[in-house]
């Protein structure tokens, strides 16, 4: 009804600020991910994880995947992570418990991490990445198209996910239930 009249996302202005915003969001994501690893307090880890997820959501916004970004915030930041925090708070006896790692564990972890990072960098550098046109993205980023695709092309995965959630719920209910 209003499609022809409406002002869409202001792509011109977005293009001007996008590189700057990209750097900010990427920095937030990477720095908080790093902080998750080196932090020793589990609640702080959860908080850094929140920033990581938020940064990723920001990157999604920059890629015009608004729905995905919102879902990222709702499901991960608002749902999963808050349950993690909830669980941590309920289970840890001392709220400021520290997770200590051994020196050798740290060394092994750093070594493996660097190895993996190098592998990824080399792999990325040697692979020609096919550029997807931005038009294709812009065309399909309204939720109407997304909904139609999800219920036609990806109908089976969608429904199977529903069944999976049912089964998971039964399993979780069984695990949590107390029987005399």
């Amino acid at each position: 009804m209003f499609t022809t009249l409406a002002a869409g996302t202001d792509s011109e202005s977005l293009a001007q600020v996008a590189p700057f915003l990209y750097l900010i969001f990427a920095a937030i994501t990477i720095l908080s991910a790093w902080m998750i690893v080196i932090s020793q307090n589990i609640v702080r880890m959860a908080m850094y994880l929140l920033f990581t997820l938020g940064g990723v959501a920001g990157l999604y916004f920059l890629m015009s995947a608004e729905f995905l970004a919102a879902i990222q915030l709702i499901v991960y930041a608002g749902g999963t992570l808050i349950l993690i925090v909830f669980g941590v708070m309920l289970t840890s006896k001392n709220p400021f418990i520290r997770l200590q790692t051994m020196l050798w564990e740290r060394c092994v972890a750093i070594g493996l991490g660097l190895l993996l990072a190098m592998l990824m960098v080399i792999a990325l550098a040697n692979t020609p990445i096919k550029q997807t046109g931005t038009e294709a993205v812009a065309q399909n980023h309204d939720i109407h198209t997304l909904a139609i695709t999800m219920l036609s092309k990806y109908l089976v995965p969608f429904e199977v996910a529903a069944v999976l959630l049912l089964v998971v719920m039964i399993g979780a209910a069984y695990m949590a239930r107390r029987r005399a």
Partner: protein
Amino acid sequence: MLLSDPQWLPQLMADLKLVMPELWLVVTMCLVLIVPFIRKGNVILPVFVTIFGLLMALLASQGVHLDSIDTARQGLVFSNSLAIDPFSSLFKTLLMIFAMLVVVQWTLFGRDNTHALDAPDFLCLLLGATFGMSLMASANNLIMIFIATESASIPSYALAGFRKKNKISTEGSLKYVLFGSVSSALMLYGMSMLYGVSGSLQLSHIAGTINSQGMTPLMVVGLVGMLGGFAFKLSAVPMHFWCPDVFEGAPTEVTTFLSVASKGAAICMLARVIQNFGTIVYNEEILTGIALGVGALGAVTATWGNLVALHQSNLKRLLAYSSISHAGYMIMGCAVLLLVDPKLILSALLFYVLVYMFMNLGAFTVAAVLERHLGTLDIADYAGLFKKSPTLASLLIVFMLSLFGMPGLGGFMGKFLLGAGMIKAGTLGTVLVGILLLNTVFSLWYYLRPAYFMIFVDEQEDKTLPVIAPLRPAIWTILGVCCVMLFWTGLLPAVGTDIAEDNGQMIVASAKRAQDTNSQHTSNVNEPIAKADAHR
């Protein structure tokens, strides 16, 4: 768009007919959940409902032949999400039969350790896992592979920890969850690489990308990551640590179920992925490379499983490592799928799964009986068992020998067919067959250990075995069926191999189709269905 397409609903209905087994499983799951509202605390009613549902799923999975499938669509239903072909249908048939037997086994043993009100939960989780596994056998794109693996895994985590009060069970379950989530993450990471490189979720499109771009490093990383996820389900070697702990801790019927069904489904999935690559990729070098990688995984898994099994004294752990090595054999079989006539290997794999199902069911049932009546799973404690209950002991020996691959028993025919297929794959195949033979010889040692203790070691003075009370006829029936099936497939393999050969066909979207749909990927979401209609 889709909804304005008049062919939409008939198409959907036609596709739904092909996934009837899965639909039956879901319906049964809901029914089992509703039953407690009618008869609270009744165990037998949900069991009957479950068996009825599995039976219906079994019947629904019949009758899929290549000629009965619409050739224009090639049995690739729901926009290529699922491939319904003879291979997956036969696996589904076996899976349903096996699930029924496991339900019977649970009714005979596990029920006593379960609160009556928890019975529907158990059955529901079992059905959920079966649902996931039957989807794994047909999964044809990355999303389906991932989500089917998860719907097979997550109920399994709960099933493995079903004895909540038992510490070993809980530990096993926790290890299973941790390993499972890490490997899921690995698989997803790999898949994201594959999607990034190829821009498509379809296996055939990804294979097509290899044709057009070559084997880029990112593609290698993606494939290795995905293989890592598969390795977890198969308990292949770097990802096998959960296997013995889960098998030891979980209720025996769950162990039986996981040892066969989950591995069989994962093998089907691996075979389908490899078959897609084998059909579409035409560069021999790349194919050999993939075969080498998968073959190495299989060889290491088989050897490692056998070597560690040599040290096991617990019957269930021994069987766990034995199942690791069997998974290794099957992976080795999958590896050569790229290089030889796929029909040969696919039918050999199906036959192997068929035989393996009965071997493991029998062995674990005996283990359950022994655990229940003797209160121990330590092999050394079974000294002198042969004199006390010769039938049970000889049955266990038969199952063990079949697992080893004694000629005349089913296990031998399975290995023989697999080896016969592998040997045709040139040098790599010959090396793999050599590893298979060497492993088989090694494994004799530990498969015969229980027999040695039962027959040749006398009962110790201080540790007298309690008398095994007369077993229920149903247990004897299960054991008898397994034993008969093993002799039958071993001595008269023709029937089994015929069935397997008839069904050793797998559908792969052709490369041309893949390219067609790939080019119009973004423009029309409903391309495959619309194309199919044009064909008519």
